[in-house]
């Protein structure tokens, strides 16, 4: 394997959790709900996956636990914002705070314990293709899932009746309600999907990216995923582009640190965050273009009138 291939592989590993968490949040936001708790759901996914993998000895059990952990954890958010119509921004922050705290407490006994690594799955035939075979078809299952998810979400949102309804809810929950669409139920499901994806992203972190448990190991990736949704202007394909852009920045700055190019490590570590800000500026400054794509009911609470 060449050095170039190795770098590409690490970029894919770094990008996958961002893509997965972002595609989940995209669905949530398309239904009109802004869930700022992605960071909390990701870290809950990480810790659930790690602990379950330890207890069962199987990384796949860990993967399922990560997905389940994220989905169940997101119910807290749904109950507060949908049933009790609490402020979505504040509740999302609460979800992040409680997720970081609870994961630290659950994972405390596992600090320094070597993790169970999820092994790659080689796809026969395809993995023999020169150059791209090594990079794309000797990956772990979560990478394949990330691509499938993007394709599936795009198909669901823009080519199915149910997806059309979901977008209608996101654009005007009152009109959708008047048409007889069950706003609350759809949103519960959309948030849960977002939670499951965030949990899967977290599982990738603790089973593949760095197979161990460290506190706060999500390192702001949930927040970057939120920014990615804005970057993608709520379109699934662009999540892929954005995710890989951020993954590349993260990995390249790590290589720059290793080479020691004379810039302090801290400044290089700032790059992914700085890139997020710059990208947000570029995407958002065209006010009209942003408004066209933003789900019009995003972040507003909905109380069904009777």
């Amino acid at each position: 394997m060449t050095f170039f291939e190795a770098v590409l592989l690490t970029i894919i590993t770094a990008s996958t959790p961002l893509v997965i968490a972002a595609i989940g949040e995209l669905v949530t936001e398309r239904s009109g709900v802004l869930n700022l708790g992605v960071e909390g759901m990701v870290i809950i996914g990480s810790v659930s996956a790690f602990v379950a993998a330890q207890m069962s000895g199987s990384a796949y059990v860990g993967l399922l636990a990560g997905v389940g952990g994220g989905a169940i954890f997101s119910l807290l958010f749904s109950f507060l914002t949908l049933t009790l119509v609490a402020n979505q921004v504040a509740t999302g922050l609460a979800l992040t705070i409680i997720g970081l705290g609870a994961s630290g407490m659950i994972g405390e006994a596992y600090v320094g314990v070597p993790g169970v690594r999820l092994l790659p799955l080689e796809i026969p035939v395809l993995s023999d293709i020169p150059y791209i075979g090594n990079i794309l078809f000797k990956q772990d299952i979560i990478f394949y899932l990330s691509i499938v998810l993007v394709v599936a979400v795009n198909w669901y949102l823009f080519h199915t009746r149910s997806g059309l309804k979901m977008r209608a809810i996101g654009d005007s929950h009152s009109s959708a309600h008047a048409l007889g669409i069950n706003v609350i139920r759809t949103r519960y499901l959309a948030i849960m999907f977002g939670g499951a994806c965030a949990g899967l992203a977290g599982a990738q972190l603790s089973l593949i990216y760095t197979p161990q448990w460290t506190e706060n190991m999500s390192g702001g990736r949930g927040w970057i995923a939120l920014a990615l949704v804005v970057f993608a202007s709520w379109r699934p394909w662009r999540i892929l582009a954005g995710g890989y852009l951020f993954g590349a920045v993260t990995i390249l700055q790590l290589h720059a640190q290793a080479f020691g190019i004379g810039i302090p490590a801290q400044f290089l570590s700032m790059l992914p965050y700085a890139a997020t800000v710059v990208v947000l500026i570029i995407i958002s400054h065209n006010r009209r273009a942003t408004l066209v794509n933003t789900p019009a009911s995003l972040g507003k609470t909905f109380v069904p009138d009777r």
Partner: protein
Amino acid sequence: MRIELEKRRNVSKLFGFVSPLLALLLTLSAGAIMFLFLGKAPLDSLYALLVEPLFDPWSLNELARKAGPLILIAVGLSVCYRSNNWNIGAEGQYSVGAIFGSIIPVYFYGWSSPMVLPLMLLMGAIGGGLFAAIPALLKTHFNTNEILTSLMLTYMAQLLLDWITRGPWRNPDGHGFYGTRDFTPDQTLPPIWDDAISAHWGFIFAVIAAILIWFMMRYTLKGFEVVVLGHSERAGRFAGFSPKKMVWFAFILSGALAGLAGISEVSGSVGHLQPDISPGYGFTAIIVAYLGRLNPLGIIASGLVLALTYIGGEAAQLSIGVSEKVTRVFQGFLLFFVLSCDTLITYQIRIVWSRVRRKAGATA
């Protein structure tokens, strides 16, 4: 079973007062259940966590030390949140305030004058305010989401603090410790009352700030402007208020207060600038602001409650052998229950057991 909400005719004054207390009670119950799961005696653990610290004079001073920055930051955030500006980067503004305030002790170490301390505090506030001006600028000029930018800037501020204290500002005689030289007495925020109250003046600043902001919100046009623009930007524009100016005002005010909290902590408690100067005050202050129902006077009370969870967590580590991470879980619970209970202020909650919809509305 279904939960239905019915809007009250008027906002309930009673529940405005009861809801934070109810949230506290629910948090205690959730905490008790959590301790049960951890295999500890629930009541004894809660006692050790939240009551025992109150009997120790040292702890009371510690309470004031921790409540100071929490209240100072939360009061600023309350203005932001009421005006519908979501500054969640207070942690970063706190760090940059601490860095700015430390410029004088680092570069003018030998300068001795009564002006040193006030200048340091002023610099701290300016630093925090300037740093908070960045998301304000981005929001007003480029329409970027202030939640994301203020948070990204927080990560960057923490890396900046890490670099500056390990790199250019590091004390060469530090014997392997990272951080600046220890501040001189001139550069140190004194205790409130020599030996009797050893907590530093940061707490007093916090209480003064809370009272001033309370006055502003209640009796001045500016306070009215904050509330109107927070409720409806459109209504505010009709009244001649500028939403853009409000963004600047809310961010710079909250940033300056967070910066002041940062330099006060460094000068009063830590004694020098180092990579780690906050146990997450900037984020916990969000909880403080909400538990205080975004009211500056309420925030004084809620700041004390959250400060208690910090020192209780430290104490419980020794006395009942639970991790100090219990603190963060407790704080998270608290915010959750506060947000849930706030529903009671504007809505009546009814639990409907049957699946059939009520027909009463149709006949009325």
